[in-house]
């Protein structure tokens, strides 16, 4: 599904990714973890072509993404902070994205799932953070693409919406999709992901299931396993 070879990226003097290799197969939920500044968002933005890597190749669904934009038809992306044009109404934004990406009928279902009907005629600038995140989720999930990338999907969501989101992600997985998630909420990651990819200093430090990680670090639970990686490498 995704194949990354020898990826390098530098922002000024700050080397963010240094020779990252990663292969992600078809189907399943993958969590990309790592401390702040380890390059998670950069990695995802490289996948989306928003950040241009200095070196290395990325292919998504068997297609080299360099200088191409069509492959993004097959990716649903949830950006980290829902930055929307503030003077658009929710309804207009949804129509606009549909106009740009193609027809879909899933938006109505998702709007009722997240109970967004009362907000459709409000301007995006006047919405709360959590509601914006729900709009963000609707925009992401309405296209039914084989690859779903979620950057901090839980931020600002209330408990009910969080449960709905988890169900939604599981349903996507059941359809055979590949879901890539970054999150700092360890309980969420533990509950939902099949495999984790741990980034450290611009490289993959660990890739495998949560139980493998627990064995490797000799820790009884997931949160401590992650913490032990961080203390071992930064002590």
């Amino acid at each position, binding site marked *: 599904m995704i194949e990354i070879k020898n990826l390098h990226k530098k922002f000024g003097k700050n080397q963010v990714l240094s020779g990252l290799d990663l292969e992600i197969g078809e189907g399943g939920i993958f969590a990309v973890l790592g401390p702040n500044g380890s390059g998670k968002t950069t990695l995802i933005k490289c996948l989306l072509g*928003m950040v241009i890597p200095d070196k290395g190749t990325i292919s998504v669904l068997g297609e080299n993404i360099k200088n191409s934009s069509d492959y993004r038809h097959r990716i649903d992306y949830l950006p980290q902070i829902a930055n929307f044009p503030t003077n658009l109404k929710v309804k207009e934004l949804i129509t606009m994205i549909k106009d740009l990406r193609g027809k879909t009928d899933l938006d109505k279902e998702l709007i009722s799932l997240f109970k967004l009907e009362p907000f459709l005629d409000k301007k995006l600038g006047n919405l709360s953070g959590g509601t914006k995140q729900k709009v963000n989720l609707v925009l992401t999930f309405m296209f039914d693409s084989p690859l779903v990338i979620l950057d901090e999907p839980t931020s600002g969501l209330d408990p009910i919406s969080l449960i709905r989101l988890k169900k939604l992600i599981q349903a996507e997985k059941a359809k055979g999709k590949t879901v890539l998630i970054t999150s700092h909420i360890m309980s969420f990651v533990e509950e939902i992901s099949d495999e984790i990819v741990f980034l450290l200093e611009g490289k993959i430090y660990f890739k495998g299931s949560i139980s493998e990680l627990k064995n490797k670090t000799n820790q009884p639970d997931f949160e401590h396993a992650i913490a032990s990686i961080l203390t071992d490498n930064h002590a």
Partner: protein
Amino acid sequence: MLKILKYSFYDLMRSRWSYVYFAFYLLLGVVLLFLNNDLSKAVITLMNVIIVLVPLIGTIFGVMYYYNSKEFTELLLAQPLKRSSIFLGQYLGVAISLSMSLILGLGIPFIFYGLFKSNAIWDFSLLLITGTFLTFIFTALAFNIALSNENRIKGFGYAILLWLFLAIIYDGIFLMSLVIFEDYPLDKLSLIGTMLNPIDLSRTLILLKLDISALLGYTGAVFKQFFGTNFGLIVSISMLTIWIIMPVLRIIFKAKKKDF
């Protein structure tokens, strides 16, 4: 690209600024006609205002729009769209809506005053055409500045400096060099110097069409010989077109390499 253009254009049409700009030109046109009581005189006064103001507004508006629509741009970048079409669409959206404000704002009062029955119509059209050229040129330059500077304050600063340079400082340097080298034949040099600055080029183009080149003395005669002919007009228009194409190419080039 057309879809992006459409949304940028709608976005701008809904914003207050397009109307402010439109209303300003409407007022300017009405006041000038009222004060001058004569179409051709009003055109000359208008030229002086347009030559300075249109580049300023194009620059400021271009930079402002780019920084303000950053969120929109990031949203678009994650969609299956080419980068060049995103940025060209936004650029054309700004440039076209500014040009429309200019053309409609000035055109309406002049038409009501009886433009079509007067012989100032060609001068007036030339004025609007150069105004549109200047809008496209300076919006493109503004997009270049904004694309190269993440910091808004810096971006605005450079944009103002660019305007100041081309509208005022360039003329100063130009005049000084003419004074310093007055012993040499300067008509070719001054022609080239005029060609290299879109504001000067537009000003000369309009002045000579207005047939007041006698005011310009000997150099005016040389200019008249060059700009007054069809050849001069074609060269000037191509020069202005190059002034649009170059920055637009750099927008495409820059946008392809930028990280978001």
